């Protein structure tokens, strides 16, 4: 059963230096507050995976907390490149970053394989693509019925998955709705699932086939209103596009980056997120 905990307790009890962690969210419902709490926790040497590492991974990489990144698209969505990630890959600053690169289709299937307790996922993928020659974790199997060669990738089985969702009911069952990405698969692929939510409600009262993660498949739930900012939570607040643009400038300079992180992350707590989304609520 999910425990209701403060975000700092949730992060500190479950994430450790050297952990393999995924913070999932496809543009929507990105767990910013949980990522910032992780940065404040002082842990390091993380292996991170995510289909779309964006600003939060740029921040963690820039802070030197990440030793390896598994990903399929590393960009600032709608804006451009990730400058801290670039600095790490191109210049080893502040430390070298090992990367394992896939396609979206392969990563999505890797999460599903993890959630399904399979060791691998198969797909008709990477045909003619260069990643096949670069990434030793892209292998193949031969179909025993047709003889066709298909791509095979290992299942993702992180230690911890962290996601943000709209709401939990009083028992800790969590509703994710709208652009749901691979959040359910990520949560179920991990040994532990940590969820931040906008609010707790008595009953979820939703469609019979809504995307719900039962309480007993979740480790910890923290209420953090605005916890996805500058990403968004459909039904709660809009995406703060200007923050993504601003990030492009902040992240372009190592010192500007560190100053910003000091002031906006290290010296803050999860309670600031509620204020940050005030002007984005309907």
């Amino acid at each position, binding site marked *: 059963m999910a425990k209701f905990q403060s975000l700092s307790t949730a992060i500190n009890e479950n994430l450790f230096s050297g952990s393999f962690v995924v913070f999932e969210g*496809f*543009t*929507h419902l990105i767990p910013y507050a949980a990522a910032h709490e992780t940065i404040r926790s002082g842990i390091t040497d993380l292996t991170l995976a995510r*289909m*779309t590492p964006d600003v939060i991974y740029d921040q963690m990489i820039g802070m030197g907390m990440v030793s390896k990144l598994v*990903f*399929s*698209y*590393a*960009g600032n*969505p*709608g*804006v451009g*490149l*990730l400058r801290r*990630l*670039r600095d790490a*890959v*191109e210049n080893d600053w502040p430390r070298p970053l090992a990367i394992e*690169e896939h*396609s*979206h*289709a392969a990563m*999505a*299937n890797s*999460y*599903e394989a993890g959630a399904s307790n399979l060791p691998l996922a198969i*797909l*008709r*993928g*990477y*045909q*003619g*693509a*260069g*990643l096949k020659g*670069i990434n030793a974790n892209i292998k193949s199997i031969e179909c025993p019925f047709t003889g*066709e060669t298909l791509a095979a990738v290992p299942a993702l089985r992180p230690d911890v998955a962290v996601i943000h969702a709209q709401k939990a009911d009083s028992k800790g069952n969590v509703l994710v709705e*709208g*652009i*749901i*990405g*691979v959040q*359910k*698969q990520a949560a179920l692929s991990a040994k532990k699932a940590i969820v931040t939510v906008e609010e707790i409600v008595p009953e979820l009262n939703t469609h019979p086939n809504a*995307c719900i993660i039962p309480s007993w498949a979740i480790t910890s739930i923290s209420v953090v209103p605005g916890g996805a900012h500058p990403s*968004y939570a*459909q039904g709660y607040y*809009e*995406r*703060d*596009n*200007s*923050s*993504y*643009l*601003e990030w492009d400038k902040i992240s372009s300079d190592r010192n500007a980056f560190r100053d910003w992180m000091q002031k906006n992350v290290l010296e803050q707590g999860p309670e600031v997120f509620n204020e940050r989304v005030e002007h*984005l609520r309907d």
Partner: protein
Amino acid sequence: MNYSSYEIMVVSAARLLKNDDVCFVGIGAPSAACNLAKLTNAPDITLIYESGTIGTAPDVLPLSIGDGELCSTALTTVSGVEMFNYWLQGGRITVGFLGAAQLDRFGNINTTVIGNYEKPKVRLPGGGGAPEIASHSKQVYIIMKQSPRSFVNKIDFFTSYGFGNGFNERSDKGIQTKGPQLLVTDMAIWKPDPTTKEFEVVALNPGVTREAMQESVGWPIRYSETLDENIPPTKLELEVLRDLQERTRIAHSKTGNSGQ
């Protein structure tokens, strides 16, 4: 009516889309072209964004691939796994749109690195959905501005495969889809030669010279024997596109417009 080279590019792409197309749409020019088509010549076109939104009809252009507007106007929104498995690999997409940091004459695309993969000069975002969009969409349309930096003789990395070295290389690899069938730029419309699969120019935009073309492309350009001049955007097309962009600007001004 005056128009920009960006506008004729978007309009030219939009014109080629049809009501029964199911498009896997990327952010930027492809998104503008697909939504323009939906507002003009292809009102029943199906637009799919890789965030999982199927049959979406945004009133304004999205800034990110996963804007809330895409979901709230969609027929339905599915998980990432379903999107890539049932809809893309499942063979349901008629047109996949791709852009590129580097493109070669055979429609091979690089969005991964400039320079060497292990020690790149510029680390780009990577492929995302592109490797499989390139192989599973029934056809691929590429929209991008011409420049010698991006239209290169040899790409640094094969993010998404087009025709390889041309001829039958694509089908010999067992890929059963048609591959890049259209390249729309700010200067011209290109289509692959049926035999060699090299892109050749089938229409030049009004006022574009062969000299200007060659200055923006890193390989010797081939022209179709039936070379046309592209038709300028009509007044209606421009008005609809500009209205769409103005609506987009106003809608996003509250939260910051990241532009094109």
